[in-house]
């Protein structure tokens, strides 16, 4: 036997992919999720205004990359689990939500192409948290996370420019500049930059159009 053969080209023929540049960044006061808005089937842009920032609980959201169908299905199931959890035990912690994501992604790893970043604001702790769940279904708690095909081009930029003590506006700029570069180089990413800011004061949605972020 010559080792284990694995087919890594997982997207089925005609399947829609969230090409993607996504990231989530904690800061002093909360967390910001960011994403582009492009969904592709091969080189055709099936949706240029996609919303990849998905709510699974009031202040627990996720960024989706990989197969659009798989990530939507997983997010829907996690949302169901968290709704039931809340009814029985009250608000779940972010790590609990990440754990549910992980269980689904890990147990079904052979049949899923889902790269998810879980991000939320814990009102009890008063701080934001980010968990990365890549293809295999492992969990990685991080100060900030980047994922998707476009992230490959901004590892250097993010590593050099991230600071733990950013305020909200600085974090918005960091996400905007990072995704701008990811979109610039990755053909599978593009459209508008969407952001969701989670703080003790609630939820804020932001959008940035090409004319603004293209020439930063």
């Amino acid at each position, binding site marked *: 036997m010559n080792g284990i053969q694995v087919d890594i080209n997982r997207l089925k023929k005609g399947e829609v992919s969230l090409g993607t540049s996504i990231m989530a960044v904690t800061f002093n006061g909360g967390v910001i999720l960011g994403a582009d808005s492009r969904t592709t089937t091969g080189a*055709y*842009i099936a949706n*240029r*205004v996609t919303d990849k920032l998905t709510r699974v609980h009031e202040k627990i959201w996720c960024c989706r990359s990989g197969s659009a169908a798989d990530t939507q299905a997983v997010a829907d199931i996690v949302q169901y689990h968290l709704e039931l959890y809340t009814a029985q035990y009250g608000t779940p912690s972010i790590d609990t939500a990440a754990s549910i994501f992980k269980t689904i992604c890990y147990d079904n790893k052979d049949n899923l192409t889902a790269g998810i970043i879980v991000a939320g604001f814990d009102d009890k702790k008063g701080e934001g948290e980010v968990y990365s769940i890549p293809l295999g279904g492992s969990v990685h708690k991080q100060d900030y996370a980047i994922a998707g095909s476009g992230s490959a081009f901004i590892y250097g930029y993010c590593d050099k420019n991230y600071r733990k003590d950013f305020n909200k506006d600085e974090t918005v700029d960091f996400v905007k500049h990072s995704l701008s570069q990811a979109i610039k180089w990755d*053909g599978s990413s593009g*459209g508008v930059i969407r952001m969701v800011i989670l703080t003790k004061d609630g939820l804020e949605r932001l959008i940035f159009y090409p004319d603004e972020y293209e020439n930063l």
Partner: protein
Amino acid sequence: MNHDPFSWGRPSDETYGAYNDSIAHTSPFPKMNTQQPIITGTSVISMKYNNGVIIAADNLGAYGSLLRFTDVERLFPVGKNTVVGISGDISDMQHIEEMLSDLEIENNYDNSHAEDDEALKPSYIFEYLSTVMYQRRSKMNPLFNALIVAGTENGEPFLKYVNLLGVTYSSPTLATGFGAHLAVPLLRRVIDREEDVAKTDLDLAQKTILESMKVLYYRDARSSRKFSLAIIDKDQGLIFKQGLQVENMNWNFAKDIKGYGTQKV
């Protein structure tokens, strides 16, 4: 001792090393190098109008999904009355660029009428290129491109396509790649048949081409915002515009889209 007839008349292996017998295992076919494109250019779009032709192509050289080179010129003027637009492999495009340059040099050498009666015509350039494309295809070593030759000849607009297979065709509206699927239907709304060419002026044709470039930037994941456009007009001659950008895009409606089904926030 080795008595195998295969080894008769030659020294034993210990003397000069093992014999290289690969010549006995050659392929009966000639060398065939069908490649794969590496750095690629996307759509080229074009249309005729009442006084000439317009052709456009963006300035991107993609490396798979990486938008690697953003300053690639894919429209090549030849003389004063022809422009060749090239999509597909960029290294093969540069080879064709060199061929066109050699063609011009050859034509102009020792030729006092190179600027008028004996200037290169679009049909000559096209015939030459399409012959080369088919010949390369027949050797199983294609130039991995799709070309559009646009120009004016004897006062009439000229527009013809040839690709890596040596397939050629002509129409009042032509495009390669994604443009063939997305731009041609838009261009045909203005010029549905040859008779509509005379009813279309430069202004309308240019607007239609710009609108098509916008749609391609919306929908082609291997396209760029920056592009070049060339007009070959019967009277005004060759007008080459570079550094153009897709403008007047609609993105504002995106702010009202939330989730993918039931999400309200």
